[in-house]
């Protein structure tokens, strides 16, 4: 890639676009762009009415940057137990630029290499949300978060 040597700044335009796209869905209770405790994030709170009663909260956090980096994390809380995983695109010493930090706590050492679609909107559409959908099914079927 030739690249334009872009620096890593928050890509507000793409996050605003995503906020509108999420805001149109019934499964989304609220979208919040740059809340005071998450300065770089679009926080998407899902409607727990779709989940078993023991699920207290599910949210997605999306960060996007002008050099193409992104972090999309899933946070689930069930009976006070927090779990999270994260889809990442950024250079670091432990994995390929595209990688995934699995449940239960998105540890760095547990990360696995991945290859995602070019556009973050497609990564969310084709990788993150199908995973979230599947997770809903798993939660109904099993007692785990």
């Amino acid at each position, binding site marked *: *890639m*030739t*690249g*334009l040597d*872009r620096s*890593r*700044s*928050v*890509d*507000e*335009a*793409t996050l605003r*676009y995503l906020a509108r*796209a*999420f805001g*149109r*869905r*019934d*499964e*989304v209770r609220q979208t919040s762009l740059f809340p*005071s405790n998450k*300065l*770089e994030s679009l926080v998407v709170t*899902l*409607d727990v*009415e*779709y*989940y078993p009663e023991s699920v207290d909260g599910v949210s997605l956090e999306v*960060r996007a940057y*002008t*050099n*193409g980096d992104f*972090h999309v994390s899933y946070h689930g809380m069930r009976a006070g137990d927090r779990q999270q995983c994260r889809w*990442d695109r950024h250079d*670091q010493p432990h994995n390929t630029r595209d990688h995934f*930090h699995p449940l239960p706590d*998105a*540890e*760095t*050492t547990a990360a696995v290499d991945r290859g995602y679609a*070019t*556009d*973050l*909107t*497609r990564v*969310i*559409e*084709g990788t993150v*949300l*199908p995973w*979230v*959908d599947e997770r*809903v*099914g798993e*939660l*109904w*079927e099993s007692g785990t978060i």
Partner: protein
Amino acid sequence: MPADEPGEEFGLAEGFSADLDAKPADERVYRVALQLYEPAGVSTIAERASCAPDTARRHLKRLADIGVVERVSESPLTFARNESYFEWRLRNRLEALPRDELHERLAELTERESAFRERFDAESPTDVDAFDHAEYDDVETVWLALSEWHTVRERIDRLEAVRRDRGSDSFREENAA
């Protein structure tokens, strides 16, 4: 509608995808334009936007006229996101804010910045070695915090610039009067 049983009605991926696909071609090209962090040719962009190359070319030319994208090369014709346009838009948004709101935001960010300085015992995020503050397991959490600190500084700089410009404007107005 909410479910009482295994979440059959929960179809976030499908709905989200249908929404994106249902957008008119100009918006689909705009969506891809936002994400042209690397230069790309017309046919690649057309593929990413699910439209014909001619359609993509037409919309890209319009977006280039507005300034959303810039032509990186002529032959082959490639485009990339024009960062200065988006920076200009962010400043515009801030310029529209009332003076009090501007001050309030600046005060809030300055407070966040000193909290970061205290937490990492450093003057700037570039002075911090994440490994000094984390076990390897959660070093990325520290990187994300440092990234936020960097963003706080960028927002402060942008707000300061807008405030300075506004200050000189009112100074000019006074002089003109």
